[in-house]
């Protein structure tokens, strides 16, 4: 197999002068794969994502993207490196209009004005609700509509690796379903995906491979198929 889309090796990281939160974590996201990362609150999932995305500098270990070392990358270099990161909680700009939010999704793409209009037009075709609300401030959208906007904005820079942090949190089941359906579309277009979530059921439904974290370490890993019939056990034991 060629180089993994994302290769995390032996990452140690923590906050301030505190103890290591991550005690040597390694994981791989294969090209075109959907990988799920599960774990309870406090297992270190968010710390790991913050480290991969450059919000925290690792104390040891490396992060590589398609074989290229990106350890300690600044967060604002993510899109230029083909990483689309959807953070936990809402990330729309509430005082900016829907259209302005989308325009900023093309910030790092260096598209011409015409090409930019084209990709935004495509996003409108995929999510017509955004077109009808394009001049409305994003803060006035419902939670579900904000999520649709976030997903649309994420896709605009054509990321090759998509990282989703707790996207099911606080969303109605129907919207979670729609979000993951969109994830599958992006994957069909060639993106690799890392999904981090507390909901084992959602993640097992779309992932090919699963990692389970506990107390800052990878506790268990394997093909998602192996876990599917044990959802209840896993949920009870680790999450």
């Amino acid at each position, binding site marked *: 197999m060629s180089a993994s889309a994302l290769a995390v090796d032996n990452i140690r990281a923590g906050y301030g002068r505190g103890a290591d939160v991550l005690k040597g974590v390694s994981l791989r996201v294969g090209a075109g794969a959907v990988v799920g990362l599960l774990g309870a609150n406090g297992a270190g999932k968010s710390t790991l994502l913050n480290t991969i995305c450059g919000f925290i500098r690792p104390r040891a270990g490396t992060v590589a993207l398609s074989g290229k070392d990106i350890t300690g990358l600044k967060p604002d270099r993510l899109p230029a490196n083909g990483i689309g990161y959807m953070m936990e909680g809402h990330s729309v700009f*509430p005082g900016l209009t829907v259209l302005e939010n989308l325009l900023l999704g093309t910030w790092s793409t260096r598209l011409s004005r015409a090409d930019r209009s084209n990709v935004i037009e495509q996003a409108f075709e995929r999510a017509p609700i955004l077109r009808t609300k394009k001049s409305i401030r994003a803060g006035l959208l419902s939670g579900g509509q904000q999520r649709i906007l976030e997903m649309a904005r994420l896709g605009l820079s054509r990321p090759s690796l998509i990282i989703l942090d707790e996207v099911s949190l606080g969303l109605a089941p129907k919207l979670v379903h729609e979000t993951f359906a969109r994830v599958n579309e992006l994957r069909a277009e060639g993106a690799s995906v890392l999904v981090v979530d507390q909901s084992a059921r959602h993640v097992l439904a779309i992932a090919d491979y699963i990692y389970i974290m506990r107390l800052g370490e990878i506790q268990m890993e394997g093909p998602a198929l192996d876990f599917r019939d044990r959802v209840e056990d896993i949920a009870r034991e680790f999450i």
Partner: protein
Amino acid sequence: MSDLMILLQLTIDGLTRGAMYGLMATGLALIFGIVRVINMGHGELFMLGAYAMYFLTAVLGVPPILGILISAALLFLAGMAMERGLIAPLRSRLGENWLVDGYVLTIGLMVILQNLALMVFGAREFGVASFWPGRIEMGDLVISNERIVILLAAFVLAGALGAFLHYTNVGRAIRATAEHPRAAQTLGINISNMYTLTFGIGAALAGAVGAILLSIYPAFPTVGGEILLKAFVVVIVGGLGNVWGAMLAGPLLGLIESYSTAFVSGGWQNTTISLLVILVLFLRPQGLFSKQVVRP
């Protein structure tokens, strides 16, 4: 002179004065809204703009419009240097508590700049006669050309800032940075650059106002004090960090000053304004023109 003419005259005087308060406050609101620093040194940026304008026009003979532009450009650079050199290091070092440190730092900046000006230029006032002498008379109504230029300049600058913030990529990125810096970063926006740029723009506005008003407020080390106070009142009335609110509250304040001088008596304008601040803080602490933005 009919009562209506007097009212009209007072209105024009108030609007001119208020337009400049509004521009000063807009810079202050922009810096607070985006960089999150209450810039106590904003009046000193005005003062530097006034000195720059004096030396450009009275000493070097640069035409006034060009003088205003150059003064603004110089203050733009100075503002960016201040942010990059002094405020950015605090932001990266101190986590959540850096805001108070930033505020104190700008007080220090105010004192240092005032004393530097005193050392370099002395306490003397550097003023000029009107850049645009002459006046327009319509019956009893008299408007000096200077006031017309000041009003025009306020419209042009406010319009340019609004257009920049709303219709350019960088302007949108600045607003995004104010609303959700982390999300802005993940879209590839270099937020440090946005903070620096914003501080530069706020400083350029203060510099431009200092330059435009040179014939009314001659340059001297503490000239920025009064105008800073007025700008703070405007910011409170318009809503903290609310750029549009500041643009609207400026003229409102100018009108209140102008009317209260005429209808109550000279010297009362500061009392009226203090009363306004107290009323606003009690009844509408978010400012007269702030909408409650829905936050996620």
